[in-house]
């Protein structure tokens, strides 16, 4: 039974219908095999791009969908309900388009943005380093100016290691944050190509889940990129990164909600069919109440991220609400997927049913885009006057 959604326009309703159809056809049937085999879904993101799903919250002028976050996030949720790794990568791609869209010059935007929003160029986001998780001021990877014969700036030489890059080694471009000067105001943002001499990627991390889309480290060994790939000004990097943070958290909140919804749907379907002691197990009160709490958690997570999204769409502050949404939705996803395994019993623990995968996928959502402990830190600092 599809989710009963509140949507602002009939265009948005059509978009959700399109997403469901596409996702039912292209994502759902393939997710299991790709995740088990750790096989990257070649060509799939191009398909999503052709359907217009990879530039939804960006301007039509550059080929985007001009959709409010309220709608974009619900699309993401529908994708996540079929294949979380693809939804997460879509969220990361959307995030990776943000620096150029918000801080690039018109020339830069005209040159690169249309291909990015059309999904012809898939993006990754490269902020973390091995020893700097959520602590951006501790970054050490550096970009040094390269000058031409006349002493003019022609490019930057990049040296250092980055970590935890979703789509690493597969993406066509990365929004990269590196150090151009000491201190927290010495970070700059670059839109770098996915392949350049002196850039190599580590082997994919062996993760518990989200295995179809690789997460890798990147080694920058003096690679030189053109000077015009600097987005914004030197030293503006942290400002750019922070401006994307809250939106990225909403993306994960939506993915987590979709994942939880999928787990709930499987659990409800199973509980309606399986019988024990002569009755359907959904009619046993102990299990019925568990399912009710799962459903309440999913509904409430959705309402919470949509509240934050609507604030963003209205141009109102939404940072605290984004942290609340990420915290509530990913904790809900962890609880709901874990309980879904329980509902299916021994079957839930086997790979014959998808809930075990959902549970493994949910765990990382409590961790990335700022662990939920970091979200609590953000909220509590807002409460400290």
């Amino acid at each position, binding site marked *: 039974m599809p989710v009963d959604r509140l949507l602002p326009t009939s265009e948005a309703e059509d978009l959700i219908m399109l997403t469901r159809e596409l996702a039912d056809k292209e994502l759902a049937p393939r997710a299991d095999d790709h995740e*088990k085999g750790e096989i990257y879904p070649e060509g799939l993101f191009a398909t999503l791009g052709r359907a217009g799903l990879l530039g939804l919250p960006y301007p039509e002028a550059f080929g985007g969908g001009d959709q409010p976050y309220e709608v974009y996030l619900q699309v993401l949720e529908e994708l996540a309900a079929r294949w979380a790794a693809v939804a997460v990568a879509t969220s990361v791609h959307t995030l990776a388009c943000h620096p150029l869209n918000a801080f690039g010059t018109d020339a830069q935007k005209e040159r690169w943005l249309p291909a990015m929003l059309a999904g012809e160029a898939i993006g990754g986001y490269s902020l973390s380093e091995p*020893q700097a*998780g*959520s*602590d951006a001021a*501790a970054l050490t990877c550096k970009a040094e100016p390269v000058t031409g014969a006349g002493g003019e700036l022609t490019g930057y030489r990049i040296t250092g290691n980055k970590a*935890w890059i979703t789509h690493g080694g597969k993406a066509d471009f990365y929004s990269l944050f590196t150090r151009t000067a000491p201190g927290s105001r010495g970070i700059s943002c670059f839109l770098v190509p996915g392949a350049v001499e002196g850039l190599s990627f580590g082997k994919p*991390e*062996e*993760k*518990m*889940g989200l295995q179809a889309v690789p997460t890798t480290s990147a080694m920058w060994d003096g690679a030189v990129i053109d000077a015009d790939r600097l987005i914004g000004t030197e030293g503006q990097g942290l400002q750019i990164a922070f401006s994307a943070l809250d939106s990225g958290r909403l993306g994960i909140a939506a993915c987590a909600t979709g994942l939880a919804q999928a787990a709930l749907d499987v659990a409800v379907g199973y509980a309606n069919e*399986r019988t*024990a*002691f002569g009755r359907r197990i959904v009619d*046993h009160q*102990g*299990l019925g109440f568990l399912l009710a709490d799962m459903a309440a958690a999913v509904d409430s997570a959705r309402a919470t991220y949509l509240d934050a999204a609507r604030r963003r769409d209205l141009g109102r502050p939404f940072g605290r609400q984004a942290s609340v949404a990420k915290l509530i939705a990913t904790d809900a996803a*962890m609880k709901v997927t*874990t309980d879904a*395994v*329980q509902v299916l*019993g*021994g079957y*839930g*623990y*086997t*790979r*014959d049913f998808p809930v*075990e*995968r959902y*549970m*493994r996928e949910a*765990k*990382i959502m*409590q*961790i*990335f885009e700022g*662990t*939920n*402990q970091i979200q*609590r830190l953000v909220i509590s600092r807002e409460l400290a006057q």
Partner: protein
Amino acid sequence: MRRVLFESEHEAFRDSVRSFIDKEMTPNYGAWERAGIVPRQLFTAAGRLGLFASVPEQYGGAGITDFRFHTVFCEEAARAGVAPAAVGLTLHAEVCIPYFLGLATDEQKQRWLPGLADGTLIAAIAMTEPGTGSDLSGIRTRAVRDGDEYVVNGNKTFITNGINADLVITAVRTGEHPHKGLSLLVIERGMPGFERGRNLEKVGMHAQDTAELSFTDVRVPVANLLGAEGEGFYGLTRNLPMERLGIAVAALAQATAAVEYTIDYVRQRTAFGKPIGALQHTRFRLAELVTEIDVTQQFLDRCVIEANDGTLSPVDAAKAKWWATELQGRVIDACVQMHGGYGYMLEYPIARDWIDSRVSRIYGGSTEIMKEIIGRSLELG
């Protein structure tokens, strides 16, 4: 908190177990995970270690039934991060062998106990069927008497040691009564019509074989009946408290090990210039976890003493099982979270613990079944 469970012989056994694990298990563990099974030689090695000592001396064991040795083995396997490879061994030792000790005739004991004691005969128990969980009355595998034999037809699933097993204690229906129509037959490796299905793909516990079994017109001699015909339900339920306590003990051992890994990790990992252990939130979370573990340890230790005395009630075993396994889930999940991104990477033992441990709330009777048992004992109406 200080424990008062162990005597010096258990601590001596702990030393032997440690060197056994270091030598026999840890070096091969990765290969077993990839193979989805442990080798048969692990059982014979465990026999030499003394893990099957509950078999009486006349049949090659030591006649020692002391659950504390089992507890020591579980704790050390968890600490070394090889618990899934120990599951088949402990099933053999603490679930299957007691069936033979309690129900077998002298003739059966002579046939099977020596092999069970030295690990050359591996045992399994086949109760669950596709579509039936803990509801024994739903068992449909049928054994029809034909002269001196039963003809067995049916399917079983989720069978631990399913691939390795030589002797499968199989719950079969010999009559229509939901409970009194159940009997136990020992079905042996090689009997015609006894097929093993695939080794099931599981979310974790990869080093342990869990299989589907099928029986098509398998002819089993009446001499392989364990206990009397129609007394299978009694046989299946009498050993459940011990089985559940065993799961609880293993669950708590794994939670304890997870907290130990995590304490090491938070001492080393830094954020914002300090070890993350210096952050108050980390300190509070770990304080919570060690408290929960300490509280539960004292309870389980009491259960072990009662198990040794033969006074452990099914209701108390149910309490131990659901409480300890739910605790294990909570604790290990929190430990993953404290590892951050590294906790999601399979090279860290905490990540493996997380996926391995999920099943303990399900097998041996799910949390819901345990609550049903406890709830009924309260006679609420």
